């Protein structure tokens, strides 16, 4: 994460001084060849009609199941930084022919650099980012394949931090602070190897119950690289701010992370809970 932030910062500063490309080529007075890849490790592609080139920079050159941030660098066909473009980003799974309900948020940083937040991949497999870029009167599209998301959920395994350091609160604020979410299991303590349900309570930042939210659930064992052995379902609103999560099953003792992606009106956010099961 630190590397990503640093990367964004550097790119941001580069943008500030006028150009995100920053290669020494400018200083040497060399001509750019149109449609050049400027960043090592970026995913580089020209748009369908050749109007733009796009570079996608991924933190650690990979994406994960869940919420991701990416950076885009857009150049024109003359290899000029494209400022003020309108860009829509759609995560898409070609094999399943579907996208996701979460909408990525694009922020221009200047000098052809755009940060994209809330890029959500909901399952393992092969995804692409579908971009539509409009600059002035020119619009063009491109599909950029993402590195595959590992068959085991994620391809690297995290070592558990000292378990006493893991926050196992059953009430947490969501990442962006839109929601306060708490859960209550119908079996205490949360059991291993048994189907059961949770009651989920979702409140807005000002303490009001959140109605008609759409909620998706992801389970993960960071140390093992796999999640639930089931496909739990989150019901619609039971009563204001209350939702039922059915079909939960934890197949192993140890550290689990359960994440809820919540969409309510214009607000999209996610919240995670740690569980230490024994």
């Amino acid at each position, binding site marked *: 994460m630190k590397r990503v932030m640093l990367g964004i910062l550097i790119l941001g500063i580069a943008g500030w001084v006028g150009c995100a490309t920053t290669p020494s080529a400018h200083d040497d007075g060399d001509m750019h060849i149109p449609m050049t890849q400027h960043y090592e490790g970026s995913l580089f592609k020209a748009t369908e009609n050749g109007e733009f080139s796009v570079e996608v920079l991924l933190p650690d050159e990979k994406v994960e199941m869940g919420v991701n941030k990416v950076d885009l660098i857009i150049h024109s066909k003359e290899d000029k930084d494209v400022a003020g473009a309108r860009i829509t980003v759609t995560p898409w799974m070609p094999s399943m022919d579907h996208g996701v309900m979460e909408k990525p948020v694009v922020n221009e940083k200047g000098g052809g650099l755009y940060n994209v937040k809330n890029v959500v991949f909901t*399952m*393992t*497999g092969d995804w692409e980012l579908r971009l539509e870029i409009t600059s002035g009167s020119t619009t063009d599209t491109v599909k950029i394949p993402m590195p595959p998301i590992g*068959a*085991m*959920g994620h391809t690297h*395994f995290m070592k558990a931090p000292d378990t006493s350091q893991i926050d196992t609160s059953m009430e947490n604020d969501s990442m962006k602070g839109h929601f306060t979410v708490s859960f209550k299991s119908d079996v205490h303590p949360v059991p*291993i*190897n048994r*189907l059961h349900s949770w009651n989920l309570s979702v409140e807005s930042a000002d303490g009001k119950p959140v109605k008609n939210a759409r909620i998706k659930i992801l389970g993960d064992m960071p*140390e*093992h*690289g*796999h999640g*639930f*052995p*089931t*496909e*739990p*379902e989150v019901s619609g609103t039971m009563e204001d701010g209350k939702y039922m999560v*059915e*079909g939960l*099953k934890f*197949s*192993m*003792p*140890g550290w689990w992370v359960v994440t809820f992606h919540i969409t309510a009106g214009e607000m999209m956010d996610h919240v995670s809970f740690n569980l230490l099961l*024994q």
Partner: protein
Amino acid sequence: MTSIKRFQSLIPLVGLLLVLAIPGTGFTGVHEWSPEEVRTLKTLWIKSLPPVPPDPSNAYGDDEHAASLGRKFFFDKRFSGNAKVSCGTCHREDYAFTDDLPLAHGMGTTGRRSMTLIGSAYYPWLFWDGRKDSLWSQALGPLESTVEHGISRVFVASVVLEHYREEYEKIFGPLPTVEKLGQLPARPAADDPSAYKAWLKYSLEDREAVNRVYVNLGKAIAAYVRTILPGVSRFDEYVAAIDEGQTGELGDIFNEQEAQGLRIFIGKAKCTNCHSGSLFSNGEFHNLDIPVSDKMPFDAGRAEGINLVLGDEFNCLGPFSDTKGKKCQQLWFMDTDTRKYNGAMKTPTLRNVVERPPYMHAGQFSTINEVLDFYRRSENPDIEHQGLTDRDMRALEAFLGTLSGPILSLGE
């Protein structure tokens, strides 16, 4: 340091010496367990095994007459193409309800090892790949497999009509009269077009009638298999003694090596990651990359099992189930992401494990020691047994021997 503080630091030592000095309590060493360890031990002992869960898809699951008839079906070799194979051929009563072969052998040889039936009523998924979601549906699979019983559902119905009419009708009501019912190989089989053709020659009503007898046979066999349960092992006696505070007796139940093995099992070897609960199995699927012979084709395991159970006419959501909808909760909420389960096989129980080699889904290992050695070398994150010493391995093997006990099942 003041003299008072120095004195205080001695108090625990004095206390320990006092405990050692009291006759009868004894210094138990390897038999001492922390409250947290005791909690874990109690998740494993037989007293934590709940009653056999009901199977809502089988209305006859807990019918004792059905179980009794099911037992007869189970051991009846007439339900086979060569009159030599019964369910009991591969699930031997004298061999912990499995057999001693690496690959199961009926009319021919299958691609996997027979699984023991001990406690199988507790699992949501049956077979190594979980391609069945109930015991009755599981029992029907081998009958129509050409390498197992090698017969058809029409054949099954004809044997029931001929030999079990009275007992069957007492439980399931009148047997249908199926005209022209001979010992035909007719079955809806993708692997045998002529058998399929023969099956399609039956009227819809006749097919329904044959299916009904076939399913009821499965439900009776399931009622019997539901009675095959683990009994009290030495391990269970050991935990019972801990629970009752009879710490002085622990050394009589387990020797030191067995106690050490148990500590490794629940501790550093993390065996309970998968071998959890009173059956020592989480009933889930894991790919451990266990080597198989080059001659065997790739086995996709659970990845294929997911598709098979979803498409099974005899699954919980199908027309022959006695329940429907969300009451089939395991199937309803099943993880259908096959990519996560390529080559994954079900965690088997460890009850009576030392009595029933060989091990793993294709009988790859002939001794417990080979299994443990494989685990020790594995780098699979689900296993994490690295760092075991030879001494640890011997202790683990000794402990596994304590998981044997009588196997309960409905008698004649």
